[in-house]
């Protein structure tokens, strides 16, 4: 193991953060936690007001730096820094956005959004939307969260709008809230809205309160940051995703600790997942439509092609088979089996249209027990054979799948 040699004098470490935000403060607290747990003494340099000032940083006479790279100016200022530097900040879908030569500790935006998404689906919300921020260099993390949200919507095959709204400024505040409530009114309800920060979530709550929109009955809201200040400022307690900020601080401190002993981690990236979700009133949604049906369809969407049976769907949902059938009859006017079959049929149609595989393999990969059974289903539902169906649709060479034919059916999203 790499262990830093005990040194006579404490290392001088600069922390370049804008610690007026809870996110940065918690990362710094994580660094402090690491230092206490290891009994490592660092002489920490922080500005009086905990704000990051870059002027003169190149003349810092110290041993190492931990810096928040969400501000591109910080990244630029440290580009040629000869000291060991550990960067922290947003995760990126595109690896080119990470600094190439430094270790980088990221908050995992994809997991933040997926945690909020899963929570809202679990709360029984049939529609989802995101409230983001206008594009700016300093909030690239907001665009990353949008990307994560759009990817989830696409994977689940649902329409989920994203609204960026206006940048926050005193003169445009009224206008911003008016436009925001107009957007909310136009959404199909009930809707669960993921705000990219708690600050944005507070705007949503404000707009809802001013325009008589019921939270969480019509609009359920979840933020990101779990900021105690925002909870203090809102009348309806705000649910929020808790980022792994303390672990980010510990991880950054651990890496810098090793770098002070001579180790180097150029280009190393560590993504830190969220550590929790604070569930409060703003997402305690009591849905009118059956959450069981939504949950069941969520499961069927994922596993229809693996030969699941009604019993397994009921088990997953946690209700009896007969109750689930009753919910399905009431909401969808079809049985669970018919719903499963519909997904299998759609998957088979897509696979035949793409000419991905021979009919026998399509039957297997789409969860039909035999080729004959798939024939029977095609004949009954579409009044044709799979081959006739394939001949009836034009080959879609444009979206020919690059996936290897050996890929398991599990990775094949239902069409």
């Amino acid at each position: 193991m790499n262990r830093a040699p005990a040194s006579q004098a404490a290392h001088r470490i600069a922390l370049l953060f804008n610690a007026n935000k809870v996110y940065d403060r918690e990362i710094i607290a994580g660094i402090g936690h690491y230092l206490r747990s290891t009994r490592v003494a660092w002489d920490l340099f922080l500005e009086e007001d905990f704000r990051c000032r870059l002027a003169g940083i190149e003349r810092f006479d110290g041993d190492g730096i931990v810096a928040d790279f969400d501000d591109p100016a910080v990244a630029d200022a440290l580009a040629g820094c000869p000291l060991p530097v550990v960067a922290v900040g947003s995760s990126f879908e595109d690896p080119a956005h990470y600094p190439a030569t430094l270790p980088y500790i990221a908050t995992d935006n994809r997991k933040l959004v997926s945690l909020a998404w899963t929570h809202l689906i679990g709360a029984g919300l049939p529609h989802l939307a995101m409230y983001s921020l206008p594009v700016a260099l300093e909030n690239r993390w907001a665009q990353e969260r949008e990307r994560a949200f759009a990817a989830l919507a696409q994977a689940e095959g649902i329409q989920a709008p994203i609204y960026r709204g206006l940048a926050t400024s005193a003169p445009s505040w009224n206008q911003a809230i008016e436009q925001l409530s107009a957007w909310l009114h136009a959404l199909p309800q009930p809707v669960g809205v993921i705000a990219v920060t708690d600050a944005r979530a507070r705007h949503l709550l404000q707009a809802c309160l001013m325009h008589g929109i019921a939270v969480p009955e019509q609009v359920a809201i979840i933020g990101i940051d779990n900021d105690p200040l925002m909870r203090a400022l809102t009348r309806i307690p705000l649910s929020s995703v808790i980022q792994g900020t303390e672990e980010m601080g510990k991880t950054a401190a651990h890496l810098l600790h090793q770098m002070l002993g001579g180790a180097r981690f150029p280009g190393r990236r560590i993504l830190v997942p969220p550590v929790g979700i604070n569930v409060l009133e703003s997402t305690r949604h009591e849905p009118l439509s059956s959450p069981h049906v939504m949950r069941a369809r969520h499961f069927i969407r994922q596993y229809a092609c693996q030969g699941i049976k009604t019993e397994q769907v009921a088990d997953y949902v946690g209700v009896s088979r007969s109750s689930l059938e009753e919910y399905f009859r009431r909401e969808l006017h079809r049985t669970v089996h018919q719903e499963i079959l519909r997904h299998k049929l759609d998957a088979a149609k897509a696979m035949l249209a793409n000419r991905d595989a021979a009919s026998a393999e399509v039957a297997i990969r789409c969860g039909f027990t035999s080729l004959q059974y798939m024939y029977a289903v095609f004949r009954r539902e579409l009044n044709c054979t799979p081959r006739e169906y394939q001949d009836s649709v034009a080959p879609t060479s444009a979206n020919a799948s690059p996936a290897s034919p050996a890929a398991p059916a599990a990775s094949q999203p239902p069409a």
Partner: protein
Amino acid sequence: MNRIAQLSSEPWGALPGGDACRLYTLRNAQGMKAQISDLGATLVSWHSPDRAGRLAEILLGHDTPAAYYAATTYMGGLIGRWANRIADGRFTLDGIDYTLDRNENGNLLHGGANGFHRAIWQAEDERGTLVLRLESPEGDAGFPGNLSVQVRYTLDDDGALTIEYEALSDAPTPVNLTSHGYFNLSGEAGSDIRGHILTIDADAYLEVDPQMIPLGAADVRGSAFDFRHGAPLGARLEWPNTQLARAGGFDHCYILRPAIQPGNAPAVRTVANVYEPASGRELTVETDQRGLQCYTGNHLEGQPGRHGVPCVRHAGLCLEAGGLPNEINMGTQECDEVVLRPGRAYHQLTQYKVGVRT
């Protein structure tokens, strides 16, 4: 004292050799359902409610007895006679050298190729608890003594699944039993445990050599192994660390703090906690044992799972309570503790409790 769960059973197919297996189901008032098979006394399935009360599977597993029999991942298995490794598949006890089944790189792993997890146990319903018994004959995997083993599974209304182990032998023999369940609290098939938050109440763990044989104890402080405060596994798996690189993740035994109560009997205490934020599910582990093997499913990628779907890497997390790996060869005073002698009884109590953190 909580009301004890209802126990029912059903046939569960047969092994390739024709032996029929049964599946036993424990239920509690929350609607929880834990299933155990007489094949390997295996914890096959555990359905537990999430934050909104919906049940989902929280253990990795297979669909059929044949799949369990063919698998090499020990999913949910009751491991014996010796959990984890014995170096070079040999040990010396009371001056006699014994050679064991060397089923992994020349070492014994998890009781050898035909360990307890592949045996058919005798199952019995005892007032709502499931008792499984196995007679392991002298020479089983090379171990001395005829060993009688009993394992009792109890599910209570608080969501605690208690596993009580007992063993008796007619000759001195090392014994180290464990339960090898892979937890994934998300309830989402195909997911991994990187988003799980792990806490282990231990100050030290055993570093291992390239064959995963313990070298000695190391302080967790300041390392990726420090879970005294909860940390997300996804981040810790990426920390630079030669031990993590060696094992492809966590596959290390934590040395639990001693917890001796008056009368010198080891006390049961809480040793670990796992939290999965999306579902809200939380697992708490209590045990009277000295060791806790933490395995993050480093070799699960492509291994068979449920519904015929292969596992992803880190699909599940094992927290295996027991003695220490290779302890019989460690030459310490404690290695006496892993020797069961005639007239004495091996005893272990480990509890996995699943609930929801709101």
